């Protein structure tokens, strides 16, 4: 059905700006340096240097070691600093290490923590252990927001995704997130649909609203708009806000900017007219 909802002109402009404001601009590589992170932060503040009406993104997402650089570069901008933690991306470390990882990231200035769930425990049916770990990390976060990465590509069934979503929400997660981007299968529309249904039902039952973040593999404006339509049709417009829905992405941003320019000027500009990050 989603391919058959059409988004054009003013609605499209609105959707593109909303999608830009929802981007968690991400760099998670061994080769990340302070220079690279500073460049990304500059891009986050002004995605399109040629157009001051272009909104900033929601957050920068980096490894804990890069948090101080990002926090400094983003100071005063209102853009969040998100840090992956808990032995990202595998999560295969003792709980004390994961908690220390989290606390260090928060202490360095991260106000959002993207944790990974213990898939080893989940897939062997030790759901309580998964729950307790998330609850402990949530406590270690203090005031920082917690995003719980389910790594849906490794959970493989929709039943598992639904169950993991539920565990993440019950344990106190502020967001549930599809993927690390480090395994072959990342965010897909069907998996995001299952998660959106979960957060919708969770709010109906408990009154607490939880956000959703698909991450990995969303590269084009067309894809992003399909996700927004999915949010609109499933969870409703309460979730059509950067506080409740995010895209974990890096290349998506430039496609959004390209389509935004096309919409305002009527012509496509080449890739050299958009900054690399």
């Amino acid at each position, binding site marked *: 059905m989603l391919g058959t*909802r059409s*988004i054009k002109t003013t609605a499209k402009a609105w959707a593109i700006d909303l999608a830009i404001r929802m981007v968690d601009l991400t760099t998670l590589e061994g080769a990340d340096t302070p220079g690279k992170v500073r460049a990304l932060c500059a891009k986050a503040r002004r995605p399109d240097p040629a157009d001051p009406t272009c909104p900033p993104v929601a957050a920068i997402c980096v490894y804990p070691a890069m948090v101080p650089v990002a926090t400094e570069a983003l100071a005063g901008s209102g853009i969040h600093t998100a840090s992956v933690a808990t032995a990202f991306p595998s999560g295969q470390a003792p709980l004390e290490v994961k908690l220390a990882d989290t606390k260090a990231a928060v202490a360095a200035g991260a106000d959002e923590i993207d944790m990974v769930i213990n898939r080893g425990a989940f897939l062997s049916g030790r759901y309580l252990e998964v729950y307790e770990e998330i609850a402990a990390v949530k406590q270690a976060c203090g005031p920082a927001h917690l995003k719980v990465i389910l790594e849906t590509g490794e959970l493989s069934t929709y039943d598992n995704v639904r169950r993991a979503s539920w565990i993440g929400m019950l344990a106190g997660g502020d967001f549930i997130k599809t993927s690390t981007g480090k395994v072959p299968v990342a965010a897909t529309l069907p998996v995001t649909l299952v998660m959106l249904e979960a957060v919708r039902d969770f709010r109906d039952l408990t009154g607490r609203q939880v956000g959703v973040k698909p991450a990995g593999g969303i590269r084009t404006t067309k894809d992003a708009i399909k996700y927004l339509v999915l949010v609109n049709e499933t969870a409703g417009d309460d979730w059509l806000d950067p506080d409740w829905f995010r895209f974990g992405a890096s290349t998506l941003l430039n496609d959004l900017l390209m389509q935004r320019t096309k919409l305002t000027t009527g012509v496509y500009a080449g890739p050299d007219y958009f900054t690399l990050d």
Partner: protein
Amino acid sequence: MFEYAPAPESRAVVDIKPSYGLFVDGAFVDPADGASFKTINPASEEVLSEVAEAGPADVDRAVAAAREAYDKVWSRMPGRDRAKYLYRIARIIQERGRELAVLESLDNGKPIRESRDVDIPLVAAHFFYYAGWADKLSHAGFGPAPRPLGVAAQVIPWNFPLLMLAWKIAPALAAGNTVVLKPAETTPLTALLFAEICQQADLPPGVVNIVTGAGETGRALVEHAGVDKIAFTGSTEVGKAIARSVAGSRKKVTLELGGKAANVVFEDAPIDQAVEGIVNGIFFNQGHVCCAGSRLLVQESVYEPVLASLKRRMARLRVGDPLDKNTDIGAINSAAQLERIRTLSDIGGEEGAERWSPPCDLPEHGFWFAPTIFTGVTQAHRIAREEIFGPVLSVLTFRTPAEAVEKANNTPYGLSAGVWTDKGSRILWMADRLRAGVVWANTFNKFDPTSPFGGYKESGYGREGGRHGLEAYLDV
């Protein structure tokens, strides 16, 4: 602010002539008495075209043409050559798919999303499938050299105009019969475009004849002494009349009639998926589906969440312009059908069931009915027993699997049923006990040319589709 923009499919792809004759012996001819009727777009009430009305003399002519083509050409042609024509027709249908889809939505009122993604692809698939059988009839399990029957009289309904044509014509031609087909009076246009496709495919004249008209034309056709086989899809009332009229004659009959299918949702079913299936079951094609899941049976323990989820989902359905790609529910096919839906819905309210529809703006012109559910329905209510043939769902509850089976089977019909559960063994247990021609498990309204389709009890007899569908057109 998140407004969807209209995305109408262009009407320019299809060329509707101001008037159409009858398709007899490979050419369009005027009816003997010059009678005609108008066909309209149910979404706007605009007249689309004027179509010839066939009288007894025209039916005579069409049957004679079919007989001659049968005797001289089609029954003598080797199966592999018949297959070539059917493959050619299938390919032309695919090539002209957009044209057919737009025309179907204009004449019938169904959303373009359905005509484009469901009807037309299935039409092509049916021709491809039966083309494959044409040279393999001796391996179909009906003896070493099964013979065709002769001239088939086929009368089809307005809910899936071209798809019902394909269900009828593809197996008939594959088996070596020739046909005279009467489309419904409210939806003749795609059948007439199909006649042009037969010309384009160089199909020998007389193999396919199309006579347009209403009930009288249909009666003249099925009662004609020159036909060997009658295939009818439509109302149970007319089906009974046909069965009476051919009693004692040599004519072979298959009837695919009404339905009042139960869609059974157990407590362990994934609710969101079940709700999608419920919506697809009853609101697909505006509920103009003989196998529609018009009775929802929900296990009492999950009644409330299922109903809440269903209402929320229904509020998202978009009713409107059938040619708009955003549209989920199109127009009711005719004023008469709209009247019937209204009458039965009013009776539902009077009998004490609670009526609910989501708020939705209906267009000013044309025939429209908002998606509607009735709760608190019991087996004794008329809306739980009679076929409404519209976007109206009756919701009932049950406590145990045995009660679900009992209620599901407690109907004069038996065309289809749906079961929603996580448990495989329960699906099989239910399928064994449900008296319905099709039992869908965790899905609904799924069609495939390889799968036989047909009813129990007052839903008719005979099967269409699959190897079983050949039997109706062979002398076995």
